């Protein structure tokens, strides 16, 4: 039976058919659906972890105990887990240990590009690279079995165009989960220097043998004067581009790009065209083997972003000297203004940003941001940096001690708070850095599709209390009170004391889903045109996405977007914004807070 599956779902089914028993991950686009799919299988231990390091450790530990285990994350997440990853190659495993990372070339939803295959080279862990969902299924299954057979971790590198592509996939049914039993082996598992040195020699010995193994994942299609070596999605673009260009070529499809099989040293006597997504990882290895290549290194294909059919057609054309250039795309008859992503209408973060904007008016503020929905505070001018998970408090502390004139307001979401800010919170206390840490707690990891965050079982204010940092809790839908408390927090920080404000209200999208399920139709708000004086506070300062500015400057609320949060009505100084069904407002806010 063929199912129309997302690459990530196919990965999950592949792991299930290999009998995966333990899986852990941290959500991140484009990887999240792997764990989400596995979560449906209650006969196994499947969990979201508080960060990628924990996720990798859980899977690694399980595999040491002989279980078949998987850890899933996005590329940048692997950096967080890099420490246990490297040791995993040294100890090896007993069961299967598959590390799945989804790279995001072109940074559709990431702060940097990163090619996970380097981690394979650096940590001596073989890397599999599927080109489409069907192969993703197959390689997830084979990767897990292979890992167990080799007693060595295996990485499965996906990219956006595999993880987030849906295609017909033939799946096999799940196999029963394979748990295990831990057997002590101190010389292998305790990496004190003398043991680690021995293990390094073992790792290198294994590494050499992996090169032969990677031949299994090699296939050659077609023939011709021209040789194209392609890896992952590069293969799909290469086949299509060659068809377009009507070039007959031998296409060498590489399924395990790290390490490359030794026999690739004798592909093509002339120059080989290399098509791969990300960095020239295959190309560099080929060059090291003495193969002459044309790929990314000399600029035949772009070094930035994703491959596209256009860039591959033009790249192959350049490499072969065909002189093909595709026509420029047409331009629209009217240039539409950009539509940057905004906070959702009624997003609780909208209220939090508003409260702190008002409370800190007249001060020199650095908005030390972080990675998540609330990075969209960039639209209200309230994100001055956002570089990695945990940058808010981490970099914020550095800025606060370096620049003592400005007030640092660090904004972090709940999921990121548990992921990265807990050790930082301890530093905040012990170093007594005066700043405001705002935990924007919407109780979900909303940016990646609404995974639960630890916020309900481990409220952030409890942690602040345990650490001994002054703290407040606000409901951002109550703007008046939120502004008052935000003012108090700003005053605390100005007086030299670190302070935490937990702003709590569930994600709007989750609340709306909750309402739909319980058959409740939320109220909407509308602008009484006669009363509106075009002051712009609702659409310029609060910046609710549902509120449009009409040509005369008056506000207009799009009823199909309004989620009935009431914040606009609270900020309008002329009482021009009203609910359509006033009796429903209180009930809705109540229902919302239980979402």
């Amino acid at each position, binding site marked *: 039976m*063929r199912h*129309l599956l997302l690459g990530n779902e196919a990965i999950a089914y592949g792991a299930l058919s290999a009998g995966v028993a333990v899986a852990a991950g941290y959500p991140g*686009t484009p990887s999240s659906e792997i764990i989400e799919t596995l979560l449906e299988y209650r006969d196994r231990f499947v969990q979201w972890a508080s960060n990628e390091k924990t996720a990798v450790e859980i899977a690694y530990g399980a595999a040491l105990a002989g279980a078949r285990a998987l850890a899933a994350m996005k590329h940048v997440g692997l950096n967080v887990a890099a420490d246990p990853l490297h040791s995993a190659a040294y100890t090896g495993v007993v069961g299967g240990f598959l590390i799945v990372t989804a790279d995001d070339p072109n940074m*559709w*939803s990431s702060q940097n590009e990163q090619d996970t295959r380097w981690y394979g080279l650096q940590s001596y862990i073989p890397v599999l690279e599927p080109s*489409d969902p069907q192969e993703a299924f197959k390689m997830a299954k084979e990767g897990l079995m292979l890992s167990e057979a080799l007693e060595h971790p295996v990485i499965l590198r996906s990219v956006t*165009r595999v993880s*987030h*592509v*849906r*295609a*017909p996939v033939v799946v096999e049914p799940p196999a029963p989960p394979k748990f295990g039993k831990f057997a002590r082996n101190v010389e292998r598992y305790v990496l004190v220097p003398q043991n680690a040195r021995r293990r390094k020699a073992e790792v290198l010995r294994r590494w050499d043998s992996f090169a032969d193994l990677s031949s299994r994942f090699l296939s050659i299609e077609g023939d011709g004067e021209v040789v194209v070596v392609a890896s992952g*999605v590069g293969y*799909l*673009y290469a*086949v*299509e581009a060659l068809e377009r260009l009507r070039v007959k070529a031998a296409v060498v499809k590489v399924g395990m790009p790290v390490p490359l099989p030794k026999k690739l040293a004798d592909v093509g006597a002339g120059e080989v065209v290399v098509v791969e997504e990300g960095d020239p990882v295959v190309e560099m290895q080929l060059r090291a083997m003495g193969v002459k290549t044309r790929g990314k290194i000399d600029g035949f294909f772009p070094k930035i972003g994703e491959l*596209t*059919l*256009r860039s591959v057609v033009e790249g192959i054309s350049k490499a072969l000297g065909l002189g093909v250039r*595709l*026509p420029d*795309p*047409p*331009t*629209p*008859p*009217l*240039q*539409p*203004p*950009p*539509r*940057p*992503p*905004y*906070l*959702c*209408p009624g997003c609780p973060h909208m209220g939090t940003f508003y409260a702190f904007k008002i409370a800190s008016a007249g001060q020199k503020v650095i908005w030390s941001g972080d990675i998540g*929905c609330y990075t*969209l505070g960039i639209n209200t001018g309230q994100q001055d940096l956002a570089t990695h998970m945990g940058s808010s408090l981490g970099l914020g502390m550095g800025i606060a001690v370096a620049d003592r004139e400005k007030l640092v307001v660090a904004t972090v979401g709940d999921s990121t708070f548990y992921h990265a800010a807990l050790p930082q919170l301890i530093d905040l206390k012990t170093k007594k850095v005066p700043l405001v840490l705002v935990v924007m707690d919407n109780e979900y990891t*909303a*940016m*990646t*599709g*609404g995974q639960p965050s630890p916020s309900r079982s481990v409220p952030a204010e409890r942690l602040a209390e345990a650490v001994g940092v002054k703290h407040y809790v606000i409901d951002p839908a109550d703007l008046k009170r939120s502004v008052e408390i935000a003012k108090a927090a700003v005053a605390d920080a100005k007086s030299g004391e670190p302070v935490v404000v937990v702003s709590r209200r569930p994600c709007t*999208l989750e609340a709306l889903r909750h309402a739909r399920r319980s058959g409740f139709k939320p109220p909407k708000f509308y602008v009484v045109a006669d009363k509106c004086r075009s002051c712009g506070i609702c*659409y*310029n300062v609060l*910046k*609710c*996405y549902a*509120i*449009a*500015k*009409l*040509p005369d400057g008056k506000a207009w609320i*799009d009823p*199909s*977007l309004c989620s009935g949060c009431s914040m606009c009505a609270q900020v309008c100084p002329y009482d021009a914004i009203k609910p359509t069904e006033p009796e429903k407002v209180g009930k809705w806010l109540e229902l919302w807070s239980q979402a």
Partner: protein
Amino acid sequence: MVTSVVIVGVGGQGVMTLARWLGRAAMAAGYDVKIAEVHGLSQRGGSVEVHVRLGDRVYGPVVSEGDADYVVAMEALEALRAFRYIGGNTVLVVNKRVIQIPGRYLDPEQVYKALQTYKNLRLVPAFDIAMKIGDPIYENSVLLGYLAKLLGVDERVDWLDERNRRAFDEGRRLASGDLQPSASSMAS
């Protein structure tokens, strides 16, 4: 032969669902399919873009600029933004609706007029039909019906509930020309 469809819209409109349903319909009709969620966050409000390719054997999941057979826009400003996918004979299907961009206001009539300079435009009142059925969420089913009819994959669409089915049939009827909306006759 591969048919390439680019579907665009605004986050929250159900662009992904429309693409997925189209893919299901195509698969039911015996095609190989690839659906690429090209761009769009899970939040509401941003531009969303999904590519659907169907045929006997589909390689690349992503449609190149100038290469689409169909561009389907659930919102008119996004139709303008998707113009780069239009090639010689592309059919441009646009839901007659403008979702304003915060802080800017564009006169919808002006937007439709600009779109009408393109010869192969089909302006479809999917939003109006959805509102008549009772909820804006049905607009993607109207467009699904319309598109499935154009692509000849409208036969085995059996997973829709009653109201979505009604919307689907309305779209299908529009595409077969049973019901000629004034807007699309103006366009041709």
